[in-house]
């Protein structure tokens, strides 16, 4: 039987519901704007780009066809604002779930109940998976609403969008699992938060660097951001291997957390 605590899951959901709602609304609005920008300004912006005023390195960031509907949606999906909204729940909450409770001293009240550390870890991971699903769902709904509202909904392939949703969910799940495993490995919040923020920034920068500068492209496979390519997916060229890599990362992080957390000594909070 998989160790899991329904009361703990409900408690976590109740504690985070306002945060989840706010992030979902923000992501929905952000995703809604992308088809709107495409439908309203796409043609003019494409003309601006055609003048050659934007350096090639930056054009590579925008993809081969940035002001198609797929290009606009993809750009919003991996824009720093979009990424920030996507990761705030699985990473932001995940990294505080265990180390934060440990630092506050509430973890020992929780672990005095008949909840094993593995059950606690897996229950929190399930919560993060749900948060990620809500975030992805909000973005998909926002995208569809914007595209439909501006009459370009037919330009989006539902299968591609579904693949992108799964791809993004696995991406967030992998990051959440890493954040939770890091959280389970430390008694103080500062270290996991530093590791999470540093890891996210480094991973994002490696991906951007490799895209802008071909000589650094070899670095890209070492960051999870490389395995979330909305432009390619919405362009009808999804890469199933990306899903496998992200799933493997999530499983590896979860396995590490499940191995490490029960073996740790939880000394009295100082």
């Amino acid at each position, binding site marked *: 039987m998989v160790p899991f605590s329904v009361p703990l899951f409900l408690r976590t959901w109740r504690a985070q519901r306002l945060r989840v709602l706010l992030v979902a609304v923000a992501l929905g609005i952000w995703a809604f704007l992308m088809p709107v920008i495409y439908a309203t300004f796409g043609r003019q912006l494409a003309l601006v780009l055609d003048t050659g005023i934007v350096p090639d390195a930056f054009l590579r960031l925008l993809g081969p066809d940035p002001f198609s509907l797929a290009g606009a949606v993809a750009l919003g999906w991996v824009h720093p604002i979009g990424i920030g909204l996507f990761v705030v729940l699985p990473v932001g909450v995940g990294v505080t779930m265990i180390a934060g409770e440990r630092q506050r001293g509430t973890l*020992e009240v929780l672990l005095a109940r008949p909840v094993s550390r593995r059950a606690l870890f897996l229950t929190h991971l399930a919560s993060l998976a749900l948060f990620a699903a809500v975030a992805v769902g909000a973005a998909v709904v926002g995208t569809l609403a914007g595209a439909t509202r501006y009459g370009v909904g037919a330009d989006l392939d539902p299968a591609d969008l579904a693949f992108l949703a799964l791809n993004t969910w696995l991406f967030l799940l992998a990051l959440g699992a890493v954040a939770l495993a890091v959280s389970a490995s430390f008694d103080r919040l500062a270290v996991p938060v530093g590791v999470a923020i540093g890891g996210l920034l480094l991973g994002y920068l490696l991906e951007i660097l490799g895209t802008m500068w071909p000589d650094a492209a070899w670095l890209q496979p070492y960051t999870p951001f490389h395995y979330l390519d909305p432009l390619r997916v919405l362009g009808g060229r999804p890469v199933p291997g990306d899903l496998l890599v992200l799933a493997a990362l999530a499983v590896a992080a979860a396995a590490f957390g499940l191995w490490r957390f029960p073996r740790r000594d939880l000394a009295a909070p100082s």
Partner: protein
Amino acid sequence: MINAIEVDGLAKHYGPVRALDGVSLEVRGGEIFGFLGPNGAGKSTLIRLLLGFLHPTAGGATVLGLDIVRNSVDIRRRIGYLPGGIALDDGLTGRRHLDDLAALSGRPPVRRAAVCEALELSDRVLGRRIRDYSRGMRQKLGIVQALQHDPELAILDEPSEGLDPLMQRAFYTVLDDVRAAGRTVFLSSHVLSEVERVCDRVAIVRAGRLVLTGDVAALRAQHRRRVELRFDGPAPDLAGVEGVSDLRIQDGFLACALTGDPRAFLAAVGSRATDLTIEPARLEDAFLELYAGEEADEAGLAGARHAAASDEGAGGASPGPAAGSADRGDGGR
């Protein structure tokens, strides 16, 4: 009835630091057991080992007949725990917090109403957010969460910390009720008067090692009582009387210290006494004697241990297995 807790040579070392060093003790079912020691002596370490928060370096223990390493979750299903300086979710109301913890315990909060009433936690107070609670109210809530599901064993770490004297008295009444219901309480404290008031038996730990275990009454009896006597005629001859020391005689007044059985002393005094005061031995004296550190009277400690050992098996105090003379001032922690 099986022992609620059995600890056998339990040790927890952090590199060269011996937080707990070969402790053995038994807590009987249905008793209130006091675990005494100053800060850093190893009280919380033992509790955290029993709860599975820490992994033992050596030795083992059972709680309610279950192994602390293999059956930790099953143990926690049957106990209640109040951590020292409990932290609570500030954003929740007291009631919501209690409900959440009861749900996680998997047992209905059958004792909540009684404990809340005794500790004067009204519905109105429970409806407020914990961030608005005073320290004493937080501690009361902590006590309620530990006892609300009527656990077979309650492990309470410094339970009266932050309670005012009236609430401390109310808390002792709660403990009496818990004992009357046949439940067991393992209570860690450095408040001697509290242990003396509520506990049936006590263990004293110092520098990670058990110094003494035994009945509170027996412990008191083994330690020195102050005696003052006024007499007529010649001074009674108390030199060499068993248990008498620090004898001082002046102008019809006699003062001394008395240890153990008083009958030899009373026989020697005979009918010459016009006034007699024997101050009851206090656990505090026993405690201070054991904690006097390097400056302590080694002979006195050895005597106490010898007396305790002689009472072993007769419900008296007994030395811990690690309570050899090498314990003194070893700075194990």
